[in-house]
């Protein structure tokens, strides 16, 4: 009897060992990383995921990276109280506005995290290009390179010193990560590359992207989009010839035109059924199902008489700014008070809750070409005066007959006001923010404290 019992037990327990496989339960709502990127369609979906990261991934409702984060950070860092006032309650934005950043500033932290989120998603695409069908490979590669290059450029100019301020080859830029993350080890603690190295990487990515991308690509990145960010990058470096040529390539593509009136270039859902106007070279798409417009969140406000407007009404425009506009300038009238007796004035550019967020408008390219031509004494594409007058004419202003650099820069400031250029233009032109010189450490974002808690060898910026 005992033998039977023992035998039974042994048989029973050994049979049960087959149950071990039962523990290999695969998730149903998510998939394992090993099966995520096996086919062309998978990699294309991962590429869409990288755009999603630029647009405002997951729960962040304030718009990420190009959906507002890069832009309002630049504007708040450049803001002087006579022109712009921040009336909101978010401590992170108040710190930016007062130029008193702390290393735990959540904007500095979120922008860092979300930028690398986008970079990792782009890296996932780039590491799996071999799975993309031949017909699509070049485009997919170009788009991923564009996203990575553009994000590295935005990172290095926010977290690093201005190009040329000291030694680019030793000034710390940001860590360069060019491969996707599949596991976290010590090797993932990456030190900061230099400003020169990060710029070189961004130029490399964007140049290759421009070559690989098609001429037309819906609202996704195309040749002109890559060229436009290159123009912006070269201008930031003071490489006027390269900036001029890149901007000229965008303009000469003939794909974009200035729209009239000036107001038609904004609030795309209210004005244009959600589509990009002909003036947009690149914009982050937002609709009522997906994405959020971070510029709307902070610059916008609800106007009772205009359904579809929204916003926290945090960033208010002050009289000293409005005084810059000449009489008759359509752009000077592009401001609104929520009600007649309201003390607060808002820009009209970002009232639309579901409006697309403009990243590059044609007018930026025209003004970049004008400035570069003017500085170099050339007339590639068009004479600088003609370019500036094209912008002025659209704004309803009389043409200029003579041109100065100051006039070009003023036109640029007014045309592109609050669109994210402010601090970068001040830095590259050696301007000031109130009493702070262009190279003040207070105008550079800190490396987030959380990063240095994990990896103390990550160098912090001066002044933090």
């Amino acid at each position, binding site marked *: 009897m005992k033998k039977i019992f023992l035998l039974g037990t042994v048989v029973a327990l050994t049979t049960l060992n087959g149950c071990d496989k039962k523990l290999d*339960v695969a998730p149903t709502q998510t998939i394992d990383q090993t099966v995520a990127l096996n086919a062309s369609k998978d990699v294309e979906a*991962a590429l869409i995921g990288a755009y999603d990261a630029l647009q405002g991934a997951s729960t962040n409702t304030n718009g990420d990276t190009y959906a507002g984060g890069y832009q309002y950070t630049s504007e708040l860092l450049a803001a002087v109280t006579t022109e712009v006032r921040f009336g909101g309650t978010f401590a992170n934005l108040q710190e930016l506005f007062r130029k008193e950043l702390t290393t735990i500033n959540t904007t500095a932290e979120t922008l860092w995290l979300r930028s690398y989120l986008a970079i*990792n*998603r782009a890296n996932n695409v780039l590491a799996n290009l071999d799975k993309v069908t031949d017909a699509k490979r070049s485009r997919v590669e170009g788009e991923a390179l564009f996203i990575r290059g553009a994000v590295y450029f935005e990172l290095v100019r926010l977290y690093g010193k201005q190009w040329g301020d000291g030694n680019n080859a030793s000034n710390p830029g940001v860590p360069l*990560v060019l491969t996707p993350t599949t596991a976290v080890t010590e090797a993932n603690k990456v030190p900061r590359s230099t400003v020169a190295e990060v710029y070189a990487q961004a130029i490399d990515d964007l140049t290759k992207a421009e070559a690989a991308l098609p001429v037309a690509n819906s609202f996704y990145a195309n040749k002109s989009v890559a060229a436009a960010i290159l123009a912006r990058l070269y201008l930031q470096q003071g490489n006027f010839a390269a900036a001029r040529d890149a901007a000229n390539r965008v303009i000469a593509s003939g794909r974009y035109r200035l729209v009239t009136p000036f107001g038609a270039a904004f609030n795309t859902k209210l004005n244009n059924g959600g589509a990009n106007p002909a003036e947009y070279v690149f914009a982050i798409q937002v609709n009522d199902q*997906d994405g959020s417009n971070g510029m709307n969140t902070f610059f916008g406000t609800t106007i009772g008489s205009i359904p579809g407007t929204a916003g926290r009404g945090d960033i208010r425009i002050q009289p000293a700014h409005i005084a810059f506009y000449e009489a008759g300038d359509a752009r000077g009238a592009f401001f609104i008070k929520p009600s007649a007796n309201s003390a607060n004035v808002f820009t009209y550019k970002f009232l639309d809750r579901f409006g697309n967020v403009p990243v590059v408008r044609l007018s930026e390219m025209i003004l970049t070409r004008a400035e570069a031509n003017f500085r170099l004494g050339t007339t590639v594409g068009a004479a600088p005066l003609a370019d500036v007058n094209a912008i002025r004419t659209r704004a309803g202003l009389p043409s200029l007959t003579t041109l100065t650099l100051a006039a070009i820069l003023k036109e640029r400031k007014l045309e592109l006001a609050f669109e994210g250029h402010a601090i970068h233009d001040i830095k590259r032109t050696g301007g000031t923010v109130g009493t702070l010189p262009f190279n003040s450490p207070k105008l550079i974002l800190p490396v987030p404290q959380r990063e240095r808690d994990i990896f103390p060898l990550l160098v912090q910026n001066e002044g933090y």
Partner: protein
Amino acid sequence: MRHILRMSIFGLSWCVALLANAQDRTVTGKVTSSEDGTGMPGVSVAVKGTARGSNTDAEGNYKVSVADNATLIFSFVGFAAIEEKIGNRSVINIQMKADAKSLSEVVVTGYGSQIKRDLTGNIAQVKAKDFENMPVPSVDQALQGKAAGVFVNSGGGKLGQAVTVRVRGNSSISASSQPLYVVDGVPVTSDDQSNYGGDTNPLADINPNDIESIEILKDASAGAIYGARAANGVVLISTKRGKAGKTSVSINYQAGSAQATKRLPFLNTEQYEKFYRQAAAYADGLDGLDVNDPNSYTQGLFGAGGFLDYYSYGTYGTPKQTDNNWQEKAFQKGPMQQMDMQISGGNEKTKFFMSGQYLNQTGTLIGNKLERISGRLNIDHQATNWLNVGLMMSLSRGDNWRLPDDNAFSNPLQAAALTPHTPFIDPNTGLSAGAPPGDINIPLYYNPILSVEYAKFVQTSYRNLTNTYAQATILPGLKFRTEFGVDVLNQNEEGYFQSQTVRNQTRAANGIGSNYGTFVTNYNANNFFSFNKEIGIHNIDATVGMSYQQSQTKRNFVEGTNFPSDSYRKIASAAIKSDGTSTETNFRFLSYFARANYRLKDRYLVGLSARVDGSSRFGKNSRYGFFPAVSAGWVISEESFLKNNRIVSFLKIRASHGLTGNSEIGDFPQLGLFQGDAGYVGAPGQRPSQIANPDLKWETTTQTDIGLDFGLLNNRINGEIDYYIKNTNDLLLEVNVPGTTGFSRQFKNVGALENKGFEFVLNTQNTVGKLKWNTSLNFATNANKVTDVQGQIIEGGVRNMNRVMEGQPIGVFFTREYAGVNPDNGDALFYKNTKAADGSIDRSTVTNGGYNSTERVVVGNPNPKFFGGITNTLSYGGIDFSIFFNGVSGNDVNFYGVGQYSSANGIYEDNQTTDQLNAWTPDNRNTDVPQARYLITNGSQPSSRYIFDGSYLRLRTLSLGYTLPKSITSRAKLERVRVYVSAMNLATFTKYKGWDPEVNSDTFTSNFAQGNDFYTPPQPRTILFGINIGL
């Protein structure tokens, strides 16, 4: 799964060969009580070493068929068990002696049971009589104060919501700290399944009156048999079983009414006006404005077209002005009724228990209601003399009319913040204030009454718990048992918000409807051998087996907006299907377990147990965990030097040490994952969503327990004393990783914390005889300390004021320290608490402007240091009386959720608690309420000002019953008639200034963020009348 079934069938088929063939004969007799010589019904008569047995009938007679030389065991709760060798007798009469607090009681352990006397681990037992007919929807609430070391916080007064249960402290930061619930051998779904409002409690699907006993496995030796899931304690719930003999029918009906235990005093119109005139005048003074200036704060509040004018519909200052107590609108009388029927009985071979219950309970907050219909059938059948089979099955349907979470403007209790000048009814429309076509921006905030009148959200759950078993006696003392159980929870949640609620539900302009389906299916199989053998002075009791559990949760959701009218409420009529999703998740456990208890000479006890747990939740590199435990006991009172001691009747010391785990770490935390939710304006996209950690595993708790069980004066006084230390390591934390990876956090096993404490249980029979008076007392201490979190900053609760910090109890309140009021000018003051270079702390104070320059410090601890309960029961003739207090002390509660608005010396227009009338004025300088300054911050920032002592003592239940004399009931052919009145939460003694010190807001509570109050409704005070009839 097929393997398990195959194994069970295999096990059973070869058992068939073992058909016993011993000669049977019949023994009869009568069992009487030594107290009064009457026959004792329901006494268990078991044939030792076999599955056979019987019960005595109503007169105490029994009949049982036995083999020669068998031994009968007579046992009955509260009486000492008797073993009797039958020899050649055919009639055996037995007289049983009452045992003061019987140590012969059977205690359910995992996969078996044990005599309490022989226990070497710590298992608390709560019996049916301790909680039957309590007006609480779920049984976990009934455990409060009943078992030492088991802390229960019901959270708030909303019906059917989640309850916090902590067995021997909080032993996790990120994983769950709730115990594992096992009903008749099946681990059941007990975590939140709600999609609206606060967390719900799936245990509310179980009728507490079906429960025979609840055992709580507290120490490692008791828990290790549940391995990776036992670190938070295991609650074993055993349902009632039938007994052979006369069929007993019991009908119980109770009805009564509940009221919220407390109202908080808020300002009436007169007080409000006086207070805010002062607050506005002070604010005007600070800004240099004249109170008559049209731009002044004063005119803004009180002037024509000002705040009060607007929000009172123009009645302010006119004869039409009314005084409206909005808080009172939130509450209602909550009638409840409950009908129970239980039938049990059977014969020697087949026993059954069946029950039905209908419960209808109205909440003490408007709009809240709970209904439950449940039925149960438990059958035990002796198929052959070696095979027993059985089935336990329950079905229930629960409907819960839910309330929004505490932090919603539609939470009824938030009405307390509304201006007393605002009438309940809009004089222009005759509808509730804020209902269109009236002005929807009145009152000050959304009127929560509108959500009661124009919206509803109902959760309906169907629950089936079924467990079947077959138990074969292979050899005398050797049994094989196989169990297969399911726990099916099907839940539907349906909500509709009419257009009138648009101020609260921004998308409800044309109605918004939502519908959620949740399907949780849980299969469980247990197969185990148990062996019991007594050889001379040696007794061995062993169990070995395996268990497999498979759980699947599927959810779906659809939402629609734009309904033609509010008459259409189904999403079929929604012009826009605005949202929808479906999700699924799974987990599995495969486990092997073994236990051996050895007893030598009835006095030396040793226990060994272990479990190997494998789970789909663990990483590939650590798929199986091993959880062993060892325990030992010494019954000193069996030794000759104590054997016949007149005072000490029982004395045992015991100790245990072992490992248990916590695997409530979610599903798939170990995998590297991609998620398909990264679309871009309509184009489908995917993203990496989680970084892999193939080493991820359970949290491990090492627990040591030493205990002493004692009985004095023939056990009339008996009790237990325990001391335990629980060290939890490998805490599952979400750890920061470099952001350059594209990820921000990863699950890792790092960190440690400890819990230690004393437990004390004392039961006494104060008087015996005609007047019986028993007292049972239990209390426990617990000290919790986080020893290592590797520098992670983990915070939660209201304004992130709860924090996990090394060297501190888990979730301490970490904020600025309030220093009172400057008597010279009424400014709020805060201690700087900055650390100087020499290590000294700067105790100087700053005022509001310097608030940011102060350091945050630990100002409170939400974890109770001491908690317990005391029950006194008295009976005299037909009268029975019981009174039960429970108490908690040493914990703090964060009132800031309410205080930042309503006890903020008038910073906003929110109605204030009356204690703010004590605000600083030049004539009232010695106060801790700063000067009231309308719209100017003065001390209402987060600080220790709002952290209060949450200790309380509560008269939890009180009941008085009268059982009609037999002479009367028998004339009506009734077995028993008892009428009773009972009350719950009749009185609460506390210094806490909020509604209820037993509070855990359903919004701001997490595993470690405890003790937050956010307009959380208080518990109900219920008074019930009932009648119990036995047929």
